[in-house]
C-alpha cells in the first residue's frame, strides 16, 4: 500500500466518494447473504476488517484513540451526505451518526436494503477494533446510530444484539 500522511489510508483525486457505490455495497451484501449465507457474510466482513483494513488497524494501534477519532472524522467527511459528530473521551471515541449516508442514499434511490445492513458496521468494526487492541459497540441503526471504540479499561458492557436495529423499508 501507499500510506498517505493523512488519517485515511487511501487517497483519491476527489474529496468525496460517489454515492452510487452504496448500491454496489448493498448488492454485495445481498449476494453473499443469499448465495453463501449469514456465516459466510460475517466471515467476509471479519476478514475484510483484519485484511483490507490492516493499515487502519495498525494506525489505530500505534496512534491510540486520537488516531481513531481522526480517522472517523476524515472518513465521514469523504462520505457524501453524512451527518456525523465524533466525540473523544479519555477511554473511548463515540461516533454519533445522525444521518447514515449509505441508508440515506439507498432510500433516496428506491433500493431494497438488506435488513442486516447495520450489523455490518458491528461485525466489521469489532474485527478492526480487536486488531487494534480496542473494543467496539454499536447501538441504534436504520439511519442513525452510535459507534463506540474503547480501550479495554473502559470495561464496556457486552454488546446487546438487540441494540442493533434491523433496516426497515
Amino acid at each position, binding site marked *: 500500500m501507499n500510506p498517505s500522511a493523512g488519517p485515511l489510508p*487511501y487517497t483519491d483525486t476527489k474529496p468525496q466518494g460517489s454515492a452510487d*457505490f452504496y*448500491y*454496489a455495497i448493498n448488492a454485495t451484501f*445481498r449476494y453473499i447473504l443469499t448465495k453463501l449465507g449469514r456465516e459466510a457474510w460475517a466471515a467476509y466482513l471479519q476478514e475484510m476488517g483484519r485484511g483490507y483494513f490492516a493499515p487502519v488497524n495498525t494506525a489505530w494501534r500505534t496512534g491510540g484513540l486520537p488516531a481513531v477519532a481522526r480517522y472517523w472524522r476524515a472518513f465521514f467527511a469523504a462520505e457524501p451526505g453524512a451527518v456525523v459528530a465524533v466525540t473523544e473521551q479519555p477511554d473511548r471515541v463515540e461516533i454519533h451518526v445522525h444521518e447514515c449516508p449509505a441508508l440515506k442514499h439507498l432510500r433516496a434511490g428506491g433500493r431494497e436494503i438488506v435488513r442486516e445492513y447495520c450489523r455490518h458496521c458491528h461485525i466489521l468494526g469489532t474485527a478492526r477494533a480487536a486488531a487494534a487492541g480496542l473494543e467496539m459497540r454499536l447501538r441504534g441503526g436504520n439511519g442513525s446510530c452510535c459507534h463506540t471504540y474503547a480501550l479495554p479499561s473502559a470495561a464496556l458492557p457486552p454488546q446487546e444484539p438487540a441494540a442493533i436495529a434491523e433496516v426497515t423499508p
Partner: protein
Amino acid sequence: MIGCYDFCGHYEWTFGWLERAGGHAQVRDYWNEAINHDSQRHARDLIRGEGIPGMLKYWGHTLLEESPDLGFHISHRADVFRIDFHDCPSRGFLLRNGIHHYRDYCDHCMGWTGPMLCEAGYVIDHEHNHRGQCWWEMRPAGAPGGHAAPGSVAGDKDVRLRPDWPRDPAQLDRYEKANDPDEKLP
C-alpha cells in the same frame, strides 16, 4: 462502516475473497448477479430501453461523477457507442494507492457490462492495458468483426493514439465482439 470513498479498494478485495470462497465461477456470478442485475439495474434499464442514447445517459452521468477531471472521452453515433479512458478513475485509485488483491481488476468491467449489453442486444470491442487506459466500442449484435481503425470513431481522443499505448498486443487484454469476461483474444 464500509464507505464509498475507497469503494474501488474494497470492491477489488471482494473479488479475491469471492474467488477464495467459490472459485472463478463465483466471481463471474457476482459480477453478473450483484453488479449487473442488482447494483447497476438503473444502467441495465436505461440501456435495454433506449440503446445507445441510454448508454450516453448512464455513462455520461456516472463517469462525470467518478472522474470529474475528465480522464475519459465519450464518442457516439447511431451505430456505435465508444469510451476512451485515458485515466480510469477506478483502476487509477488502485494504482495510486498500491492496492492489489485480485489478479486482474480490469476484468470486472467486462464481467458486468458484458452480460448487461448482451441482454440489451449489443456486443463489445475492448482493449485494456492494466495501467488505467482502455477503450470500449459497443455495437448492435451482428456487427461485422474486427476492431475499428484507431481514430475512426474517437478522432484524436482515441487512447490507442497515445505514445505510451502498447504496440505489442501481448501487453493488452483484447476482446472482439464479446460479452464474456473470459472471451479474451489469444
